């Protein structure tokens, strides 16, 4: 029997899992739909809580997959079960017969334009967290004016929002917003910065310190209230309305830049593959794992495994841990069968 393992998705999760599986002696085939490896991480500038550069994390992950076969710009055309093995036909014409398939298809950012009231794509001064990361990396974005005086961050855009179809918390946006707010303050020391939040979920190690630092050292103003609507003023600034729930009053403020913290959704590309062999998805759109505590890496279909954000929003460290856990699960699966 062959020791092929198909890994779908070349983000940090797919990279780490491939490297681990390769080390264990499996024949890993990794596919990535984009023209480069790294997924969202490759498009990110810095990571919370310490502000490590994303490439410092990505580079070792990429270096580690030495010896792993991978195909870029490649998608799954079809996948079906043939006598205990999955027959996967790829868009580059290659067909792989693999006993185990690992889904590391990850997440898509919530399309912020769907929250029409925030005016993303309509107002000149509204951008998303991803746009801002690109701005940090390149220093260029026509929507970021020179020397903005007031900047707002809207937490939970497309998360914790029934109207957007996503009731769940995307977990990473709070920390990302605080990180980005500090970075903006460092870039524009004259700017006043506001974070509009519903709850600040600073659950990870070092996150609370980052929050305190944002308050104390960067003077970031945290407003407990969700932005309800955004308008454009004559000067092309954005007028933001929210309730300051702590004082129970409606509030308005004029900003030079509004950053929407778009949340996570199960990746469309992953869902497409999942539908080919009817992988179950929960109400939140993410894949359903076999168990919610003991068997987080397994699908109820034998031979299908999950790791990373395709089973729910996760931080990068969580994702990498899942990648390793999935490698072990797959290893056990092979051993049990033999």
């Amino acid at each position, binding site marked *: 029997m062959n020791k092929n393992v198909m890994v779908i998705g070349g983000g940090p999760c797919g990279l780490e899992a491939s490297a681990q599986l390769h080390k264990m002696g499996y024949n890993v085939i990794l596919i990535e739909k984009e023209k480069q490896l790294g997924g969202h991480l490759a498009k990110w500038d810095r990571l919370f809580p310490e502000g490590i550069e994303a490439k410092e994390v990505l580079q070792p992950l990429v270096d580690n997959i030495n010896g792993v076969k991978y195909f870029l710009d490649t998608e799954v055309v079809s996948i079906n079960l043939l006598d205990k093995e999955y027959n996967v036909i790829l868009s580059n014409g290659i067909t792989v017969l693999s006993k185990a398939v690992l889904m590391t298809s990850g997440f898509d950012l919530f399309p912020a334009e769907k929250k029409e009231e925030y005016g993303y794509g309509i107002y000149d001064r509204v951008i998303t967290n991803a746009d801002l990361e690109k701005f940090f990396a390149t220093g260029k974005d026509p929507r970021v004016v020179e020397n903005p005086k007031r900047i707002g961050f809207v937490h939970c855009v497309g998360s914790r929002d029934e109207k957007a179809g996503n009731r769940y918390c995307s977990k990473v946006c709070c920390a990302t917003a605080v990180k980005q707010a500090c970075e903006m303050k460092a870039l524009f020391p004259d700017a006043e910065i506001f974070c509009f939040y519903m709850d600040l979920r600073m659950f990870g190690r070092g996150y609370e310190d980052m929050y*305190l630092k944002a308050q*104390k050292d960067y003077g970031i103003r945290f407003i407990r209230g969700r932005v309800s609507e955004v308008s454009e003023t004559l000067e092309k600034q954005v007028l933001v309305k929210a309730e300051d729930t*702590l004082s129970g009053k409606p509030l308005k*403020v*004029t900003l030079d830049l509004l950053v929407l913290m778009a949340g996570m959704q199960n990746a469309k590309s992953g869902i497409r593959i999942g539908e080919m062999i009817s992988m179950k998805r929960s109400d939140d759109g993410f894949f359903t794992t076999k168990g919610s505590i003991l068997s987080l890496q397994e699908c109820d279909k034998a031979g299908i495994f999950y790791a990373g954000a395709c089973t729910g929003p996760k931080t990068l460290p969580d994702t990498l841990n899942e990648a390793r856990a999935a490698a072990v699960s797959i290893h056990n699966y092979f051993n049990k069968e033999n």
Partner: protein
Amino acid sequence: MDFGYSLSPSSRIDLDLFDRNRFNTLAEIEPDVLKCMACGSCTATCTAGKYAKNSLRSAILYLQNGQDKQALEYLKPCMLCGKCFMVCPRGINTRHLILSILKIYNNAK
């Protein structure tokens, strides 16, 4: 002309009215003011709060919302007993903060 009704003043917070310079002056003397995470412990334990509207949490919020006068109203009943200092999870030196706010915003409109 009296129509029997009139324009009601806006109850909305207008952050565009926030007096940043004055707040910075305060934050320079009392960097602790930035550390408040609005947990409300100070207000809950407040000795004066039993009898009157007294809340450091609210006062800080009002200052940040550009409503300086209201902020003072939330501090004037304070007896400086110091209980809030004992309970603040962020270790804010509440008593001096209160005195400094009263000092800097004494002539607030």
